[in-house]
C-alpha cells in the first residue's frame, strides 16, 4: 500500500475526493493554458501594496500609526500580565535595542543608552554583592574575625 501511495501526487488544496492523482500528466491542461497564453496576471494585490505604501508616507497616517503603536503597547503589557511575565519583560528590556521595537519603546529603560544600561546593571550587581558580603559577616562573624 505505501508503495502505491508513493506513485500518487497530493493536491492539498483540492476537494478531498480529488486530492490524490496519478501523475503529473494531470497538469497537461494547466500547461496548455500557458502554451495558449491564457494565463493573465491579476494586479489586485500589486495595487493594494502600492496604495498602502503610498498611504503610509502620509503625515496624517503616521499619527494614526503612532496611536496604534500605543494601543499595541497596552495590549502587549496585558498579555505579559496574563502570563505573569512582567519581570522577564523588564529583564529583557535591559538588553533590548530601541530599534528592535520600531524606535517606539516608551519605557524609561529603552531611552537609556547601552552604556547607561550596562552601568545600571553593574551598579545593581555591585549592590547585591555588598549586601551578600554584609550578610555573611552578620551571620558568620567567626569566619571574618581577625586572628
Amino acid at each position, binding site marked *: 500500500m505505501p508503495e502505491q501511495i508513493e506513485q500518487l501526487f497530493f493536491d492539498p488544496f483540492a476537494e478531498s475526493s480529488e486530492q490524490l492523482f496519478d501523475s503529473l500528466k494531470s497538469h497537461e491542461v494547466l500547461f496548455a493554458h500557458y502554451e495558449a497564453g491564457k494565463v493573465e*496576471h491579476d494586479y489586485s494585490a500589486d495595487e493594494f501594496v502600492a496604495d498602502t505604501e503610498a498611504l503610509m508616507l502620509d503625515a496624517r497616517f503616521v499619527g494614526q500609526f503612532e496611536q496604534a503603536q500605543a494601543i499595541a503597547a497596552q495590549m502587549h503589557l496585558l498579555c505579559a500580565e496574563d502570563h505573569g511575565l512582567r519581570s522577564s519583560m523588564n529583564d*529583557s*528590556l535591559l538588553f533590548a535595542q530601541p530599534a528592535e521595537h520600531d524606535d517606539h519603546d516608551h519605557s524609561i529603560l529603552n531611552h537609556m543608552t547601552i552604556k547607561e544600561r550596562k552601568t545600571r546593571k553593574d551598579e545593581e550587581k555591585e549592590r547585591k554583592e555588598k549586601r551578600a558580603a554584609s550578610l555573611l559577616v552578620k551571620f558568620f562573624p567567626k569566619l571574618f574575625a581577625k586572628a
Partner: protein
Amino acid sequence: MINTLEVNKFSDEFDSAQEKFAGQIEVIDRSGLVTSQSDAVRELLMAQEPNQQGFYAVELTGHLLRNDPRVARVLGRIILMPNKRLGALSPAIITRGQEADYDITMLDLPFATKAGFTAGQHFGLSVKAQTRVEGFGGHSRAGAFEAGHFSTVLVGTRDESLAQNIMKSGDAATHQVIGRGVPEAMAETDMLNVPYRTVRLSADNHANLAVFWHPALDTEKGPASGDYPDAVRLMLGAGVAVLGQRGLDDARRLVDYATEGIA
C-alpha cells in the same frame, strides 16, 4: 560534424562535459532560461529540465514532511503549485507551523510568466513567512510594540467573537489567532487585499506534492523567498488604514475592557 553539446547547466554533466571537451566542443547550457547559478538554485532544481513552457518540476516526493532534508531547500522559498480553480500555477510558500507541522500557503492568484513574480505576490507570501519566524507573537522580545498581539487586536475590532475571546481569555485568545495564521485572519476581515489559501499538514504526512519553479522567481540573491522588506509593518499599516480613527478607538476600548477583565 558535431561541434556543440547541449547540457542542462544544473546537471553534474555540465561541469564534467566542459572539462572533458575543453577546446574541442562547445558545451551549451540547454536550460537556456535560468540566469542565476547560485547554489540555492542548483539545489532547488536538482538537475531538472524545464518543460516547454519553461517551468521546472521541483522534486518533493516521498516522506516530504517528515524531517526530510529536501524540505529545507524549499522552506521559505517561493514555489508554484497547481491551482485547479484558476487553471494555472499560483505562487506559494511552505512555512513551519508552531507544532510539528507545516503550513502550505498559496495565493489564489495566477502566476503569469509575462508579468513574473510581482510585488503584490511577493508581499503576500512574505507576510506569511515573516509572521512565522521565531519570536513573532512571543513575549521574550518585550517592548512597546509586538506585531503579533497587535494584529490580533486589529482583527478583534472586526470580529465580534474574537473580541469577546480577547476580553475573556486575554493572551490565550491572541495566540489562537497567531497560531492559526495572522495574514489569513487579516485577509478574512478585509484588512488585506490578498487572497490566501492555507492548509496545514502534519509532519507525519506522507505526501508527494506537485511543486514547480520558474526562472522568473530567480533573483540576485538566489531563488525568491519571503523577504519583502518590512512586510509585517506594511500589513499592520494596511490594517490601521482600513480601520481608520474609529477603528483605532474601538481597538483601544477593546484593550481597555480586556485589561479590566484580567485585572
